[in-house]
């Protein structure tokens, strides 16, 4: 085990250094570097080691975005009040914190998510999506356990991707937000998460089912 840790150390340190340098680059320039080689030179990272850790720019950017989600998820889960939060409060906390953490990179976020569009799923966002869905799985589990979210069998499989679409829509809203201190993004998060949880409440589903049961036989008779 000790050997594994020692072996992992250089990679983790290099990875951290590369991600830090990438973050500093995009914060300053609002765009990603021209090439891995150029990036390694500018960031004083040995080129061969850098290219081994991140063979392509997409791989590097992918790690940057997923690490941002990871960092936010870890930070909020470490908060003293976190265990007492409902699923709705957990998701709200994640989104508010994410946009705060992402603020220094707003120009980059604007350009990259703008290029991909609200529905685009480029390669550099795959692990970002996966990491977010990991986080959301915990929120959904908590919501189902606490009765905030209805367990709707096979439909429940759509929950993570639906929450991801909500996240992407929020990013898209934030990109266009020109309000002071991005207050409208905060209001947007509050309202959309509210709506999502209202739709996922057990009662909403039962009411819809009740309506369907009422309408469908009547149609059959007509």
């Amino acid at each position, binding site marked *: 085990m000790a050997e594994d840790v020692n072996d992992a150390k250089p990679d983790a340190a290099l990875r951290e250094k590369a991600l830090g340098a990438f973050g500093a680059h995009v914060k300053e320039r609002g765009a990603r570097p021209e090439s891995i080689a150029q990036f390694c030179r500018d960031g004083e990272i040995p080129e061969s080691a850098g290219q081994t850790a991140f063979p392509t720019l997409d791989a590097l950017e992918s790690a940057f975005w997923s690490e941002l989600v990871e960092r936010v998820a870890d930070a909020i889960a470490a908060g*003293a*009040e976190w265990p007492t*939060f409902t699923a*709705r*409060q957990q998701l*709200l*906390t994640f989104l*508010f914190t994410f946009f*705060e953490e992402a603020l220094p990179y707003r120009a980059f976020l604007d350009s990259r998510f703008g290029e991909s569009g609200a529905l685009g799923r480029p390669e550099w966002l795959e692990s970002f999506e996966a990491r977010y869905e990991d986080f959301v799985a915990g929120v959904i589990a908590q919501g189902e356990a606490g009765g905030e979210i209805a367990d709707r069998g096979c439909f429940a499989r759509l929950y993570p991707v639906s929450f991801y679409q909500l996240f992407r829509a929020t990013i898209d809203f934030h990109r266009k937000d020109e*309000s*002071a*201190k991005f*207050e*409208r993004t*905060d*209001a*947007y*998060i*509050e*309202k*959309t*998460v*509210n*709506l999502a*949880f*209202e739709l996922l409440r057990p009662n909403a589903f039962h009411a819809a089912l009740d309506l369907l049961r009422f309408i469908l036989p009547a149609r059959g008779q007509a």
Partner: protein
Amino acid sequence: MNEQDSIKSTRLGRTAALAGAGAKVGLNYLKYYGRRALATKSGAAALEAELHEANAAEVYQTFSQLKGGPLKLAQILSIDKNILPAAYLKQFAQAQYSAPPLSYPLVVRTFQREFRKTPTELFETFGRQAASGASIGQVHRAARGGHQFAVKVQYPGVAESLKNDLRVIKPIALRVLGLRERDVAEYFAEVQTRLLEETDYALELERSMKLGRACAHLAGVRFPIYYPDLSSARILTMDWIDGVPLDRFADGPADQAARDRIGQALWDFYAYQIHTLHLFHADPHPGNFLVCDGDLWVLDFGCTKALSDEVYFKQFRLLDPTLVDDPAKIEQAMLDLRLLLPQDDVAARRRLTEIFRESLELLARPFRAGSQDFGDPEFMAAIFRMGQANSQDEQLRRLRGPRGSPHAVYVNRAFFGLYSLLSRLRARVQTSLPEWLCPAVV
């Protein structure tokens, strides 16, 4: 519990919601006209009352969902009893306690944005649930070092959406109230200015401290201490006051002496602000006052109105006891206040002067008499009857042109609010004219 609100988010959504209220009001009118065609004459009046009730419920429901501007406008309209039929008043009066709360994470987010700290980093305890709602914010209870605080947190983006709300609500309000746009343009501009000011908690902090200091010597009136280091443009922190809201006190078992004491404090507070400071608390709804240990506590200086000397003297010359019996003086006062316009013909002039004289006789009565028993139901009933009659007066409705000073909107609001509160308190108060209008002692 669902602690989220359902404010319509986008401009389109808010517009659609308001248009929805307009459509429902229109539908209620259609139902009314259809049923009235079939009704007997005696049934028609009952149907009309029912129509107002139905419309008021629709409009109120929409306003309260949207929060911000429409809710504040509803509050203003609810207190300006001359403008709205009784049914609207009943619905709009609910606006005072009805705003649903922000989520706790959004409260935390607002703290982080304003102070770079969470509520629990700034306070030892902080209530996650709002202790009370307000039209553009909500109040949380917090504690630190054994001291209790009331922390008002503003909904994000309220200031941004306010102008749009008012732009959208204007045509609907005009239609519902049967007013002409250019005649009330200045009125709306004044309301918009005051509403935008209400979203600036930094300004509210400054005014609260200033008015609190200036009125500190008044007997029976008290103000919470405000905390600038725990306040910002979106968060306002003051002492927590464990009092009874004024309406609950008024409707409760308090004896006459206690009612008179609170009523007198309220009267003196307004008299001093208006006649001495020319700056006043213009939001006299019962939620902004608490009664604690026999004192009146004044909260929420979000809506204040300053009067220039020129505006003040023009407006309050109306309290001059000799005015009512002097046709030349009364005409000049009406021209100064633009209640009479140069283009008015003789008939309009005569009618307006007659109405004005009647209004003045009634509304200024407490000032002239030296004391007023607001427990006398006839006084408020006469004001309502006059308002209702004026709003239905065909000759008045046909008059064109913007009338009255826009500054009078909040003066009227303050006085109608004050009279309504005193009437609810059934208080007997000692009154006096401002010194400059008192007859010289020979």
